[in-house]
């Protein structure tokens, strides 16, 4: 054990900022991080044990005790629940003979739930020892457990019905499907790796690139929509000998899975975008921050990086140009939604808890290791490559005035064709529903932009996807009329935010719990109309949170109340305002009476 630990630490040169990698590698080897292991790491890195524990305890895929030889993480997302998660959960429990949250006494199987793993188009899905198992059924679940009991390897349990495209690559061998339903003219159009790099080497300076990106009005595709050209320009002008380019592939917003598909099918496009950004900004190092849920892609992505190095598209003298050096490493996360926030992502990549930083300074001035750092979304980098290849004029012909180009949408929920749609900005929600084969008259609501976005009703299905109207990071969850919106959607999302709040800011830490409890109360039929008023009123305090994720953590509730007030009113209408329906006197004295009845 000691040898394993020392070998891992040596691999990362005893660098404490690589603590995430160290812990992930050790956990892969040893199964979990024991107190003894923490002590060893603490000695070897010469940092206090508590620093290791604070990182360790932040991420839900790190374990401090054994979680089973096979660890099953069943997805608890909204769409997973729509598609029969409860039955699958029951099947796992029955076959394994334990409840979720437990490990079998022989230490073979551990059952756990997890937040959205980015498979909303093929739910219910689970991660088993980091391998995704999409489209589960109770029968499959039982079979999986039986195979585990027979001692089969994960590869055996997976079988060989791999997904389409690169999912079947020998280094990935994943059961995941891409479900690309519509290929648009920017991301999913023809692409030859290295063309853009050749072009910049030949004819473009760093300022030319930034000018071209600025002229394209490209805005960040992660959701916030910051102008990419401006971000690159600030980073270029920022003081600093070393600069970094980060690609944010911590796609944690429930219902979003586009980055998974892009990374599967077009990793070179993503990496080439990072190289171009590096050239424009003057950075020589790039980091792909890959969420732990997508760690199954890592070997494949490492292989792609090596291919690019071999082709002279990465490493030293890129495109044969002296001084054009850029290389990329992959940083895996360990399960934390908040790491999608850029400063939290940087903290995490430095081996710390993924808590957002105070700003200013912004990452472009002082980011990773306090050096100027550009953080962009996967899709943003891809788009930048195409803009460099075909020009901003070409790009500006697509989309709307404020939103140029295309957007890759992750569509899931109650529709016939869930999956990936690359469409020009400016389509209405109705258009997307039609494309996805959702019957408008059967649809109750659409959750646009994930839980932190908004839950819209039929009245707003005519609204247009664009920054000037309905801005979105790209996810649409379609919610049918057969669903109980408050229970199946709002409660699930508030539970998600409660779980995923990093706990730094008081309003986020406290109100996410309060909101979940009140929604539970309403679902139990014990809510009061003043509860609904309070939910609406208190959300203003969320604006005091440090990061954008915390600020929007009550959005599922307030946008649902805004557009579906009647559902909430209906559920509280019979309850007295003066007396709390959730207090049941008979229940409250039951324990006391039982103590004496037993005597």
């Amino acid at each position: 054990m000691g040898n394993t630990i020392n070998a891992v630490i040596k691999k990362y040169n005893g660098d404490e900022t690589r603590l995430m990698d160290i812990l992930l590698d050790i956990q892969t080897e040893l199964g979990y991080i024991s107190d003894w292991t923490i002590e060893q790491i603490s000695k070897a890195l010469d940092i206090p044990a508590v620093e290791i524990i604070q990182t360790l305890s932040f991420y839900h895929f790190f374990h401090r005790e054994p979680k089973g030889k096979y660890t099953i993480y069943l997805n608890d997302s909204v769409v997973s629940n729509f598609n029969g998660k409860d039955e699958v959960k029951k099947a796992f429990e029955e076959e394994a003979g334990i409840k979720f949250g437990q490990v079998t006494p022989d230490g073979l199987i551990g059952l756990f739930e997890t937040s959205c793993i980015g498979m909303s188009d093929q739910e219910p899905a689970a991660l088993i020892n980091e391998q995704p198992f999409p489209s589960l059924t109770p029968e499959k679940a039982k079979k999986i457990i039986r195979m585990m009991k027979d001692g089969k390897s994960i590869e055996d349990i997976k079988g060989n019905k791999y997904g389409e495209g690169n999912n079947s690559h020998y280094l990935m061998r994943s059961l995941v499907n891409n479900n690309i339903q519509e290929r648009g003219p920017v991301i999913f159009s023809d692409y030859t790796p290295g063309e853009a790099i050749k072009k910049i080497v030949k004819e473009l300076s760093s300022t030319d690139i930034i000018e071209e990106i600025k002229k394209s009005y490209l805005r960040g595709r992660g959701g916030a929509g910051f102008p990419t050209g401006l971000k690159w320009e600030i980073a270029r002008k920022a003081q600093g000998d070393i600069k970094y380019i980060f690609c944010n592939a911590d796609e944690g917003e429930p219902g979003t899975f586009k980055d998974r598909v892009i990374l599967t099918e077009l990793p070179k496009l993503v990496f080439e975008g990072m190289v171009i950004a590096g050239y424009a900004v003057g950075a020589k190092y790039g980091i792909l921050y890959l969420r732990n849920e997508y760690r199954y892609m890592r070997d494949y992505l490492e292989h792609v990086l090596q291919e690019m190095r071999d082709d002279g598209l990465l490493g030293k003298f890129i495109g044969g140009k002296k001084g054009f050096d850029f290389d990329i490493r992959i940083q895996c996360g360990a399960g934390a939604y908040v790491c999608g926030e850029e400063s939290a992502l940087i903290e995490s990549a430095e081996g710390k808890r993924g808590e957002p930083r105070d700003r200013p300074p912004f990452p472009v001035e002082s980011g990773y290791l306090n050096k100027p750092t550009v953080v962009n979304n996967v899709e943003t980098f891809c788009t930048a490559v195409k803009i460099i290849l075909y020009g901003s004029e070409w790009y500006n012909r697509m989309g709307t005035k404020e939103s140029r180009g295309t957007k890759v949408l992750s569509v899931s929920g109650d529709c016939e064709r869930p999956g990936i749609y690359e469409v020009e900005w400016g389509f209405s929600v109705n258009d997307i529903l039609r494309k996805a084969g959702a019957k408008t008259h059967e649809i109750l609501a659409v959750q646009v932009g994930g839980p932190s976005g908004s839950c819209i009703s039929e009245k707003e299905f005519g609204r247009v996807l664009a920054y000037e109207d309905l801005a979105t990071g790209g996810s649409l969850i379609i919610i049918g009329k057969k669903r109980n919106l408050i229970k199946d959607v709002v409660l699930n999302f508030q539970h998600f935010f409660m779980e995923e709040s990093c706990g730094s800011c008081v309003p986020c830490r406290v109100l996410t719990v309060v909101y979940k409890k009140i929604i539970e109360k309403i679902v139990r039929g014990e809510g009061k109309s003043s509860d609904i008023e309070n939910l609406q009123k208190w959300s203003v305090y969320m604006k005091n949170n440090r990061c954008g994720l915390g600020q929007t953590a009550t959005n599922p509730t307030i946008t649902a109340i805004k557009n579906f007030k009647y559902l909430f009113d209906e559920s509280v209408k019979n309850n007295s305002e003066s007396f709390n329906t959730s207090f049941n006197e008979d229940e409250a004295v039951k324990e006391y009476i039982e103590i004496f009845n037993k005597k």
Partner: protein
Amino acid sequence: MTKKKKIIATASLAGCFGCHMSFLDIDERILNLIELVEFNKSPINDIKKFTKHCDIGIIEGGCCNDENVHVLKEFRKNCDILISLGECAIMGGLPAMRNGIPLKECLEEAYINGPTVKDVNPQKIIPFDPDIPKILNKVYPCHEIVKIDYFLPGCPPRADLIWNALYALVTGNELLIPYEVFKYD
């Protein structure tokens, strides 16, 4: 012309009467108060039952037994405005320290195993009788049982805070809470 006096009721549930004592600490201002209000059900005048509908009900203590619940609900029915006075009414306070311990253990500690009782209760009797209130599974703050309109914090709340709040409520003037009245260190 005399204005109609506001009617006040008070009760101490699972509290220590400390909040009521603090109320009495308004000292000579009680004479001003009596000009403004009339007391109905309250330990201050020993009226046991509501004889009329009240404007303001002041509750000290949370609910630890079913009788507390009944009294609290009666207050809610008979008062337009209910105030939770002090830590116990607002959050359960000291009595709520038992909330993390199973009820059976609490009773056994209190009547059988505790150092002050273990030698004097050889029959190991825990009181249980239809005539005594039934203990709740945990101590509840008042607002978990009925709607509470105002909360006056403190353990106890200062007399000045109680006075200022009541005076403002009765006269309709603005509530003054200078720092000295609202600090707890």
